[in-house]
């Protein structure tokens, strides 16, 4: 039995207006992995997710879930998938209970399990008080929570989500994060696309970086950070820097770039230890009172910006 949950082979999608959304995309996601799917607008993230969930057909290539071609056997593949794609419309004339009952029945859940599971998922997304109220009266955030509940209803092996926290308040975002972490602990496969890099880095161990329909990078977050050419130093000063002091810092040639964040200085440099030492000496020579001087942690955002800025896609 293959350990690959999601796979695409030379997946290509060209829309009728000529836009090439996916350009021979090849990805493999192992069972139990939690993978973030990142890329700029128009990279092809939603297109990939739509193909995997049988919402659109590829121009060429194949997409597999648990080794079964999604295009040829959508019924069988989607049985094990819970999905949330873009911002779906909801059935405003139904209550959450009725809507979830529909999806449960479609997935052949028996009545007893369905009723229990409806209560569980609504509790999980914190809208159990609204179980029998019409969805038309819900706020955007509540509707989003309901849609997440719908994706989790049948305890799927694979969860595919496109911007799951869109429209949610910070508490809601945290709840979704916790849900994803719980799913990971249950060895479920999670494939989620998001623009909120912080959310992805908090939940996903691996990320796929996509640009212009091609995979730019696919690795663990840690590896990406380590391999990143970004090197930063965080410097904290006793006193707030004056304009004259900032102007003097600009003149230090070893500093490529810097940002002032909450009174602290974040310096970009070439990553060499010598350079790091020399920059420290230069700053001290300017008469600046330094409280702390240490390498900064590279965020996923830093990686993303760095990688997307360099590459145009490596297939």
């Amino acid at each position, binding site marked *: 039995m293959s350990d690959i949950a999601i796979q695409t082979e030379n997946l290509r999608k060209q829309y009728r207006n000529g836009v090439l959304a996916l350009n021979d995309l090849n990805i493999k996601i192992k069972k139990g992995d939690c993978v973030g799917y990142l890329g700029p607008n128009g990279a092809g993230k939603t297109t990939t997710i*739509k193909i995997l969930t049988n919402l659109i*057909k590829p121009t060429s290539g194949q997409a597999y879930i648990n080794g079964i071609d999604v295009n040829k056997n959508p019924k*069988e593949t989607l049985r094990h998938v819970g999905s949330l794609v873009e911002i*779906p*419309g909801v059935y405003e004339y139904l209550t959450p209970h*009725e809507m979830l009952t529909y*999806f449960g*029945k*479609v997935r052949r859940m028996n009545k007893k399990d369905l009723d229990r599971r409806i209560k569980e998922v609504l509790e999980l997304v914190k809208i159990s008080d609204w179980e029998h109220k019409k969805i038309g009266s819900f706020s955007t955030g509540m509707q989003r929570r309901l849609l997440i509940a*719908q994706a989790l209803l049948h305890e799927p092996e694979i969860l595919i989500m496109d911007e799951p926290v869109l429209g949610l308040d910070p508490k809601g975002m945290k709840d979704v994060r916790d849900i994803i972490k719980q799913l990971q602990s249950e060895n479920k496969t999670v494939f989620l696309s998001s623009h909120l890099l912080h959310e992805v880095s908090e939940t996903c161990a691996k990320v796929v970086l996509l640009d212009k329909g091609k995979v730019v990078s696919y690795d663990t977050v840690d590896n990406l950070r380590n391999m990143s050419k970004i090197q930063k130093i965080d410097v904290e000063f006793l006193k707030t820097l004056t304009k004259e002091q900032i102007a003097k810092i600009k003149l230090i040639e070893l500093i490529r770039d810097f940002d002032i964040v909450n009174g602290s200085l974040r310096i970009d440099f070439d990553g060499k230890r010598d350079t790091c030492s020399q920059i420290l000496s230069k700053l001290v020579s300017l008469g600046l009172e330094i409280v702390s001087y240490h390498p900064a942690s590279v965020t996923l955002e830093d990686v993303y910006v760095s990688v997307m800025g360099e590459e145009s896609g490596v297939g």
Partner: protein
Amino acid sequence: MSFKRDIMEDITHTYIGIQYELRKHLRRRRFAIAIILAVVLPILFYAVPKIWNTGFAETSESFVSSNLGFVNLLIIISAALFAGDAISGEFEKKTALLTFSTPQRRTSIFAGKYIAALTAIFVIVSLYYIITILEVIQIYGINNVPLDLVKSYLLALLYVCSVLSLTFFFSSIFKSVISSTLISFFTLMMILPIVSMLLTVVKIEPWFIVTYSAGLITDVFVQPIFMGGAGGERGGGFTEYAPDFGTGVWVMVAYAVILFIMSIIIAVRKDVE
């Protein structure tokens, strides 16, 4: 999955779709509007002559024929209400992003919608006929209820199928609910009748136009002067035609079946962009 289980599952999915679609029709005001029309229209044909004291038609056939003249309109309005957004609504409102990513075939979803709309309109048309029959009993007595009402009713049901398929077809083509609903409505109310009329002016019988065939619904009671394409000249150069039964029935069947299949094929192949 075994073949038998697969088929049974498809049938189950269709059944679930029918249930929820009927629930939607019941909860939206559209069903109430159609019911009101189905009740008020025939009652008007009874109440107005009664109030004005002008008396009713000589025979129950004539009464029923004029009363049922508006059942065509009711069918067209009902089809626009229940099926105008059946397919286009899923794409426009993006509920397709939810329903199509489930382990059910799109044919099951759409067949369920069609059958639900058919059921709703059948109920409305049946109500119209029941009220008409009650009026006939009241005016002419139970012995004068025309037996041709059965034929008329079955013809009306067949017309429902063809009108619904046409509406479904437009719903599958257009992405906008308003476009599909309005175009269906105007095609049936205006475009096809106008084309029929123009064809008769140039002495071509419009046998292939479904709204022309719908004339059979009342023709079964009081047949028009000219029948079956053998029209004679009247003053002004107009030739009048009236639909032949066999041809009319098969035209309605053809519209119902062909347009339904086409709409399903288009909808199944459509991307949810």
